[in-house]
């Protein structure tokens, strides 16, 4: 092992050596710089590997041959090694990235860079508090120099502001250090740690030291200077400033917080959280990419600092958690800044230019995912562990605030990403510098590698070793292949996995697996209609399916949550692909992440600190033990799941997301994705049963939510002019039924819900494909612009026809089975009033469905549509499969349901349904699907024959052959009654569709935005004001601490 001090020696030595290089030998100087950085990185990396493997012990490095505390000593342990690797690698990559700027300014700039990296490493290594100060000053000065690399003239002002603030910081730090020394007789951090400081007495010294270090972390709101630097500095340097400086400063602060003793932790927590939340909120209003990233950096560091404040409860997991967030952030932020250097414009939408290079888009997506803490990146594992630790110690407020902040961050980061994917930019495509792209790719690779490593260290399964996830990621490599090849692989993969795992499924899993995996494969058949390579489709799609596959088989709470996040990510990117999908994808991801956070909180609460727990037995255990937290667990999980089922109140993402999605995506996200929420709810009610908060039975609340969703979803569907939106709202309604059935907490209710799982998948997929096909041909989704397509698109018509019969519950198709079960279920329930809502929504479903079929296929054909052809055959094939399935399921519902029925019986210990032959008998009634089908069929045929016997001589006339107000109309457009089809209904019950929910969520986001806009005026841009703010911060915290300590 090479001693870690060589990192410092090499950095410094090379910096000095550069002075000897002739000024015009810039290439040589650069090579030297890079070589030095490479050596430094290698040393750090070598230590990291060796320490991780346990082949070496953490080492203390003495200087001057004297033991600490009498001489400065350095220490390298696992944490230090990791951070050194991050810092030096960032420096190395940044050097490559800034090659042009460095060469322009010459060897001096290169020396400064080397010293910067060296000093950051020193900051991490040193165990001496004054030495810490020296390295700090080096960093400050080097930063002052590197800011000048920017070609932005404003950077000079930013650098000056930074220096002003740094002066104040160093004054505070020095005073703090000297009094700490006086109190302790030592400058060695370990010595200081040996005698923890209370918040009283000598604490003022420690307070000053800590405050100085905290100020280096850019606490909100004393951080305007940092943001100015982020905005104006060279992006290569911003990467260092964020990834390396932030990381090192945080570690320095951590060292001293650890030394200061546990009494200080709450204060750090508060500062960290305040920063995290404040900066994230402020970031909402940023329209400059680099400033936005700056806010995000500040926020993330705040988050880690808040985690530092939790070190007392994290125990051994502390490094895993804090390091996970910190390192992920470093990699992601460096990567993002490097990308920003490739983008010519500074507006957020200017990032649209990245679309010229799919690799960069992938990188952008990965970095965003890293920042937000999504799997498979370290932040995800860290978040999981953190929440469990917090829940285990009852720190619920911290949990809530962290999650809230993370959600806000997700909000602007995903909005940003959405802009890049969907917006147009005025900037011309400049061509990307290969070396800069290479640097970004290196960061990208590092991010994924870290994900792998963290997954490996984690107590929980490594997501990057799970077959479904790997299969999905395989498509990254397969991207160059044509779409049809990838499609075949995808279908084979889905069916194959199902086949392979089938034996392990219980009946419930079987149903969901069949719908999600086999069902997914069927929908994918439709995807054959797409030509070309369809870049960026298969990875998210398969990620979503991977998540679903894992969700079904999840054994532990962690498995479940990870799968949930995976499918959320996949589906987000999928939805974003839709034509006008940007805002909807954003609201989707926000609601989904919000939901996911609630689920996380719920699991954490349920775990009581021990994680992960076996999902089913764990949840039942806390329910049986009547743990006080149990109802809250139930509530959190239920709301979380309902974000996916889009129950009313949480539904506003759905219509747009489904309606704007691509033709084959709509059925996936509607027919399949929503079922994930249902599956979750199933597990929840199965394991936890009825939970009460106070006297309120939560399942009854769910019944109400389901009923209201069913009603309002339907009512809103009635008034849609857009066919896909209509279907989307109908999904809200249908899922409302399912939630309702589930929440009835009786045998038939659950069966009802399961039946909806199957039915809704089939007919909603079918209808979406049909409507998608029509959209492909007509180019519009607005129903009043269509009409009379029945003869042109007969197959599509048939599937819509069958679909609406099935869905509206008219016998003899399978929808009726659902209704029949529904009546039987409510008969067994005590709740009456919510039934009323469900009764109303039944016929309403009939209304919108009729409208769908009528306005598209009947009425008058428009002139411009006269030459349309049937929908593409690949769209029709799955539809026909669905038609057959519906007919089959109508006749033989027992096929799928009988086993499940028995399975459900094991939960309730009853068997209310008797399956005799082909008839089903319940406590209250009976139903013989085959008989119904036969009777109706026979009558129908008989009547038809009767009609035909009365003459087959009907003369076929065109639809337009009508008389209208005693005139023959001359324009089909004016004769198609379609717009505002249910006008009377709107007059009567239009008040039901007042967008209260939308208004509510709109108000929430508006409030956040205006808060952000108001608060950011604090940052006047005046360096002096910033200095004042820094002092105000210190004094305010001082007064608060003083107040708190007395």
């Amino acid at each position, binding site marked *: 092992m090479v001693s870690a001090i060589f990192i410092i020696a090499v950095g410094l030595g090379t910096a000095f050596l550069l002075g000897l290089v002739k000024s015009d030998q810039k290439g040589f100087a650069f090579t030297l710089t890079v070589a030095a950085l490479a050596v430094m990185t290698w040393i750090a990396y070598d230590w990291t590997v060796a320490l991780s493997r346990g082949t070496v012990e953490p080492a203390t490095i003495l200087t001057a041959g004297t033991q600490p505390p009498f001489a400065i000593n350095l220490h390298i342990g696992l944490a230090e090694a990791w951070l050194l690797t991050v810092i030096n690698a960032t420096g190395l990559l940044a050097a490559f990235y800034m090659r042009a700027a460095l060469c322009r300014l010459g060897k001096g700039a290169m020396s400064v860079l080397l010293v910067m990296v060296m000093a950051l490493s020193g900051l991490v290594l040193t165990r001496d508090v004054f030495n810490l100060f020296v390295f700090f000053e080096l960093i400050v000065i080097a930063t002052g120099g590197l800011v000048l690399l920017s070609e932005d003239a404003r950077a000079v002002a930013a650098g000056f502001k930074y*220096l*002003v603030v740094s002066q104040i910081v160093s*004054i505070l730090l020095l005073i703090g250090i*000297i009094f700490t020394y006086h109190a302790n007789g030592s400058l060695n951090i370990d010595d200081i740690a040996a005698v923890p400081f209370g918040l009283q007495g000598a604490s003022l010294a420690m307070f000053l030291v800590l405050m100085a270090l905290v100020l280096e972390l850019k606490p909100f709101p004393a951080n305007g200077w940092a*943001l100015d630097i982020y905005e104006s500095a060279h992006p290569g340097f911003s990467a260092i400033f964020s990834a390396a400086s932030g990381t090192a400063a945080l570690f320095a602060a951590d060292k001293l917080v650890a030394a200061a003793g546990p009494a200080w932790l709450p204060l750090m927590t508060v500062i960290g959280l305040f920063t995290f939340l404040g900066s994230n909120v402020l970031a909402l209003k940023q329209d400059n990419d680099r400033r936005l990233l700056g806010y995000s950096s500040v926020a993330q560091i705040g988050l880690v600092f808040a985690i530092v404040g939790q070190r007392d409860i994290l125990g051994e997991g502390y490094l895993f958690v804090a390091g996970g967030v910190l390192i992920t952030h470093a990699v992601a932020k460096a990567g993002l800044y490097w990308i920003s250097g490739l983008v010519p414009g500074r507006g957020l939408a200017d990032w649209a230019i990245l679309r010229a290079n799919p690799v960069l888009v992938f990188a952008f997506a990965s970095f965003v995912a890293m920042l937000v803490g999504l799997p498979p990146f370290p932040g995800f594992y860290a978040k999981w562990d953190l929440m469990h630790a917090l829940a285990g110690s009852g720190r619920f407020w911290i949990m809530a605030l962290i999650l809230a902040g993370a959600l806000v961050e997700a909000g602007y980061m995903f909005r940003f990403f959405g802009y890049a994917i969907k917006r147009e930019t005025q900037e011309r495509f400049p061509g990307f510098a290969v070396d800069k792209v290479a640097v970004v790719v290196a960061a990208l690779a590092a991010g994924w590698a870290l994900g792998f490593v963290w997954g490996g260290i984690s107590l929980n399964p490594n997501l990057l070793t799970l077959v479904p996830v790997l299969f999905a990621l395989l498509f990254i490599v397969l991207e160059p292949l044509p779409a049809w090849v990838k499609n075949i692989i995808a279908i084979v993969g889905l069916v194959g996995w199902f086949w392979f795992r089938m034996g392990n499924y219980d009946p419930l899993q079987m149903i969901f697996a069949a719908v999600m995996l086999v069902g997914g494969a069927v929908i994918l058949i439709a995807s054959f209609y797409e030509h070309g390579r369809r870049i960026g489709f298969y990875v998210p799609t398969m990620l979503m399916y991977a998540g679903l596959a894992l969700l079904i088989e999840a054994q532990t709470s962690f498995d479940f949550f990870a799968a949930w996040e995976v499918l959320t990510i996949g589906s987000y990117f999928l939805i974003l692909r839709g034509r006008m999908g940007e805002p909807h994808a954003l609201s989707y991801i926000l609601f989904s992440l919000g939901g996911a956070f609630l689920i996380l909180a719920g699991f954490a609460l349920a775990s009581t600190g021990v994680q992960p727990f076996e999902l089913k037995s764990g949840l039942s255990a806390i329910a049986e033990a009547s743990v006080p937290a149990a109802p809250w667990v139930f509530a959190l999980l239920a709301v979380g799941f309902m974000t996916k089922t889009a129950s009313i109140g949480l539904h506003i993402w759905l219509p747009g997301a489904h309606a704007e999605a691509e033709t084959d995506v709509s059925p996936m996200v509607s027919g399949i994705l929503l079922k994930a929420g249902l599956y979750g709810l199933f597990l929840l009610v199965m394991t936890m049963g009825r939970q009460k908060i106070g006297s309120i039975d939560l399942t009854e609340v769910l019944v109400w939510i389901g009923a209201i969703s069913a009603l309002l979803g339907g009512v809103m569907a009635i008034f849609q002019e857009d066919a896909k939106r209509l279907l989307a709202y109908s999904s809200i309604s249908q899922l409302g039924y399912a939630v309702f059935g589930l929440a009835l907490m009786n045998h038939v209710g659950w069966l009802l819900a399961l039946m909806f799982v199957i039915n809704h998948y089939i007919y909603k997929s079918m209808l979406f494909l049909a409507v998608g096909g029509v959209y492909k041909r007509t180019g519009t989704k607005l129903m009043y612009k269509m009409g009379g397509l029945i003869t042109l698109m007969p197959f599509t018509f048939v599937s819509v026809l069958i679909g609406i019969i099935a869905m509206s519950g008219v016998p003899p198709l399978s929808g009726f089975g659902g209704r029949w079960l529904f009546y039987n279920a409510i008969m067994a329930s005590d709740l009456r009033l919510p039934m009323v809502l469900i009764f109303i929504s039944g016929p309403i479903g009939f209304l919108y469905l009729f409208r769908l079929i009528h306005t598209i296929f009947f009425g008058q054909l428009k002139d411009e549509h006269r030459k349309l052809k049937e929908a593409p055959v690949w769209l029709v094939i799955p539809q026909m499969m669905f038609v057959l399935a519906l007919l089959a399921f109508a006749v033989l519902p027992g096929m799928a349901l009988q086993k499940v029925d028995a399975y459900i019986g094991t939960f309730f210990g009853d068997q209310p349904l008797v399956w005799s032959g082909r008839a089903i008998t319940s406590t209250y009634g009976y139903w013989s699907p085959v008989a119904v089908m036969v009777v109706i069929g026979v009558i129908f045929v008989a009547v038809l024959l009767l009609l035909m016997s009365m003459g087959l001589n009907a003369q076929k006339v065109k639809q337009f052959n009508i008389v209208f107000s005693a005139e023959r109309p001359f324009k089909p457009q004016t004769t198609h009654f379609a717009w505002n089809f249910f006008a009377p209904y709107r007059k009567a019950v239009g008040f039901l569709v007042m967008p209260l929910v939308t208004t509510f969520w709109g108000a929430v986001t508006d409030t956040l935005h205006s808060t952000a806009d108001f608060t950011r005026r604090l940052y006047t841009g005046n*360096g002096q004001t910033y200095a004042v703010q820094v002092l105000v911060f210190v004094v305010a915290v001082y007064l608060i601490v003083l107040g708190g300590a007395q």
Partner: protein
Amino acid sequence: MLPQIAMATGFVLILMGLYGALTHRNILRMIVGFTIADTGVNVVLVSVGYLPGRTAPILDSAVPVADAATRIIDPVPQALVLTAIVIGLGVTALMLAYAYRLFRARHSLDISNFTELKW
């Protein structure tokens, strides 16, 4: 008593310097403020090491090696201050260079003129 008075002097200098840095809009005057504050910090640092009735930490003929522990004052703060002084100079020089660059950019030394970056 002696160290307290020196210390108080140092603190007063720090506060005065900061006041100058926070209120003068002229960038050069701000820097002057900071140098005064830096000097104040140095005074405070040195005063902490002072032990009444002892001599400088130089073990020459006046202070035999054997008596050192009871005769000299604490050398550590002095060592720190030496470092701090030099660092202070470095930062001051840097700020001055920046001041010049800022002046070149806008022909003004008024800090409130450099607020393009904000919010």
